[in-house]
């Protein structure tokens, strides 16, 4: 082999604390290194050209670049060596920026460590073999998981782009959190007026198949060829027959159930259509409250249903959808306000969440759009809003900012004044976060035009006194204690990961952070990609987002899917495991431990052997560390390569 080593200055990022010229010079002592140089910016066009030129001039057959993390520029340099005629896997990187120059100022130690990292890269490269990807076909269907505004946008954009879309929604209607909102900031236009048409588009789009009241059960396969098992939960209503007329809801004798759509501040019937604009507008029976299920007799809905759609014996059904890509848009859930015991959420009926307040404001809500407090139905006059309940609070393990609460609280104070002109709103806040277009102006209007009184400080406690709620807190700007007699307390409950998000992430084989939000591939440069090829993110499942951000991500994820599907064939990553059939004894331990079922047993001249299914193998290497005789080796991370790295570091 003829190896070239290129040691990057990265401007002063590396050169500042690493003597790159010395590293290059030392690299020349390594086996098979015939050329070594330092370079200003290896990734720049002249930098890449320099590598390509050296490959040609010096007849290099392998290249080591010592620069930043391979997680950043490995693909860049692989393409560069490929342009020079080498196989792109005849390339290794030494990470002397993130792992060296940026974590210490000791130039001598950094230089020495950089030499070591180049040494192991060279030893690994010496044992690299050219790898050639194989091609496989793509199933140009996409699944969108979650029918909130982000999922709707992604589904519509993909469908408009000509793709078949399967939209899976856990609830009986799409719409998500946005469907529950009364108005939206900063324009104060009607939420259902702007979302409704999009929901109808979903229903009517010929390319979209909607599985509502359904969940993803399991996911197999890989980019281009996923197999998703979708569990369609039993609705006990045949949706083919249901017309959404609502006759059943009128007659249902079980009327006092907490209405999930109304955030449990209003009642609903056991057979229910959550809201008038629901898509699909179909009824669902809740078997935990339905008298037919609970007591074994009733059958009223079955009697009144004009189409005979009621099916008490319905069971869950699994359908398999084959798709080539998946967009996760599972949104968020609200922080449980009862965890902040000093505010009394969950104990006092007049301490509610912001989303519950939205339902009180909404014309389709339980109060018909009249603000009536839950305890006694009276119209509140003094309303206290408390910000950051379950956000920016380390003691609750919720250190992050939920982002949109400042804005919706401002909106709610404005709407309150509109509904009850003689009302007074108070807002306890930590900081006002309003960095969007027209956002800060909007909060100003709430204060200046609508007279909302903003008090900077935390609330210490909320307790009842007669029919009032006493809110006691600090005004840190005035440096005083404040006590307000409130008729209603609205808590800006923070956003948290949707229930079941980690479990879905595990099925999708994507990462999630410690709060359950899904991890994007790169926080800046790959915000909607994940580390699993063919799986994309949209909306609040990645972190709290407001509506325009969610819509933007929905479209971005759709664009990624469309770009992926612009090719008829995909290339598989050739960094997969391979079986040396001579050494394999057919014990099947690799088959047992492979998480992807990517290894199968085959007969070879009458003997059992293992065989890797190329397109299924993901390249984790569990099989390689399981096989005792080293018969199955993960390409590019072979035992020999790792041992060579170890030996390079531990020379006796």
């Amino acid at each position, binding site marked *: 082999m003829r190896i070239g080593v290129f040691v990057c200055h990265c401007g002063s990022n590396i050169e500042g604390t690493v003597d790159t010229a010395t590293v290059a010079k030392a690299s020349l002592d390594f086996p098979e290194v015939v050329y070594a140089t330092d370079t200003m910016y290896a990734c720049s066009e002249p930098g890449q050209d320099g590598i390509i030129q050296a490959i040609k001039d010096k007849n290099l057959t392998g290249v080591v670049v010592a620069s930043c993390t391979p997680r950043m520029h490995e693909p860049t340099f692989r393409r560069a060596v490929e342009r020079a005629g080498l196989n792109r896997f005849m390339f290794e990187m030494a990470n002397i920026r*993130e792992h060296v120059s940026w974590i210490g100022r000791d130039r001598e130690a950094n230089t*020495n460590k950089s030499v070591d*990292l180049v040494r192991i890269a060279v030893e690994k490269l010496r044992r690299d073999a050219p790898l050639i990807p194989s091609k496989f076909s793509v199933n140009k269907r996409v699944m969108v998981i979650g029918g909130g505004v982000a999922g709707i946008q992604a589904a519509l954009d993909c469908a408009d782009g000509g793709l078949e879309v399967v939209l899976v929604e856990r609830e009986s209607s799409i719409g998500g959190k946005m469907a529950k909102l009364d108005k939206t900031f900063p324009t104060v236009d009607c939420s259902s007026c702007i979302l409704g048409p999009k929901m109808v588009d979903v229903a009517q789009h010929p390319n979209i198949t909607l599985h509502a009241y359904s969940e993803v059960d399991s996911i197999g396969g890989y980019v281009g060829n996923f197999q998703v098992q979708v569990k369609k939960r039993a609705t006990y209503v045949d949706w083919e027959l249901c017309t959404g007329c609502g006759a059943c809801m009128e007659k249902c004798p079980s009327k006092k159930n907490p209405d999930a759509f109304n955030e449990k501040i209003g009642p609903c019937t056991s057979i229910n259509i959550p809201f008038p604009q629901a898509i699909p507008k179909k009824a669902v029976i809740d078997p935990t409250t339905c008298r037919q299920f609970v007591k074994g007799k009733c059958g009223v809905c079955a009697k009144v249903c004009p189409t005979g759609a009621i099916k008490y014996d319905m069971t869950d059904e699994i359908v398999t959808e084959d798709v080539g890509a998946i967009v996760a848009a599972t949104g968020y859930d609200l922080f449980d306000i009862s965890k902040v015991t000093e505010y009394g959420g969950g104990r006092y009926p007049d301490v509610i969440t912001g989303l519950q307040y939205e339902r009180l404001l909404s014309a389709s809500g339980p109060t018909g759009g009249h603000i009536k407090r839950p305890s006694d139905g009276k119209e509140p006059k003094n309303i206290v809003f408390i910000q950051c309940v379950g956000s920016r609070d380390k003691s609750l393990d919720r250190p992050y900012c939920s982002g949109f609460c400042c804005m919706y609280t401002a909106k709610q104070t404005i709407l309150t004044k509109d509904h009850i002109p003689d009302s007074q709103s108070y807002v306890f806040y930590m900081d006002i976060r309003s960095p969007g277009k027209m956002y800060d102006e909007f909060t100003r209007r709430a204060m200046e035009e609508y007279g909302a009184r903003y008090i900077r400080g935390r609330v210490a406690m909320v307790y009842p006194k007669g029919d009032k709620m006493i809110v006691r807190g600090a005004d840190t700007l005035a440096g005083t204690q404040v006590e307000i007699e409130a008729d209603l307390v609205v808590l800006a409950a923070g956003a948290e990961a949707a229930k079941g998000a980690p479990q879905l992430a595990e099925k999708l084989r994507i990462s999630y*952070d410690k709060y359950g939000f899904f991890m994007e591939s790169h926080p800046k440069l790959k915000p909607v990609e994940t580390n699993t090829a063919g799986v994309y993110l949209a909306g609040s499942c990645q972190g709290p987002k407001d509506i325009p951000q969610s819509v933007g991500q929905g479209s971005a994820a759709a664009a990624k899917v469309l770009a992926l599907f612009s090719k008829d064939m995909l290339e598989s990553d050739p960094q997969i495991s391979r079986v040396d059939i001579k050494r394999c004894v057919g014990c099947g331990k690799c088959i047992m431990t492979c998480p992807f079922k990517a290894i199968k047993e085959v007969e070879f001249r009458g003997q059992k052997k293992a065989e890797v299914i190329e397109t299924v193998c993901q390249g*984790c290497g569990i099989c390689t560390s399981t096989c005792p005789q080293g018969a199955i080796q993960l390409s590019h991370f072979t035992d020999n390569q790792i041992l060579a790295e170890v030996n390079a570091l531990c020379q006796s």
Partner: protein
Amino acid sequence: MPVLTGKELRIVGFLCNWCSYGGADTAGVGRFNQPTDLRIIRVPCSGRIDPLFIAKTLINGADGVLVSGCHPRDCHYAEGNFYARRRLEVLKRFLPILGIDPARFDYTWVSASEGQRWQKVVTVFTEQIHALGPATRHENVSPELLAKVASAIQGGNRVAA
């Protein structure tokens, strides 16, 4: 010049690409200062780390080995770190019988976002290894200790006899 004599000890890290290698990158991006001893070998998954790599590294004279993967349930390959956890724990408990201080090996989980955690892990582990000092190789056991052990065994053909 593998290690800076007197300043550094030989510490080898095996990090999974998706979480911990990224976490170490995040620590770098955040300029979280760390000791310079550690040399990182990148592997796709902690499940790729045959415990024998660690045994080999320590028997061959490394002063410390640090393994880090994705947090349990967060493996890019779904299950790799679950296998790793079992195998690495078994190895950790096996080392002392070979005459290798188990404190020379640790394994942990660091996600790609946990730059600060990585800084802490590297710092604490490096200090731990420096407290232990340079490792002795089996070949270099002192003649006195060898004689002591030999005389305890003399005359028998089994460990205890």
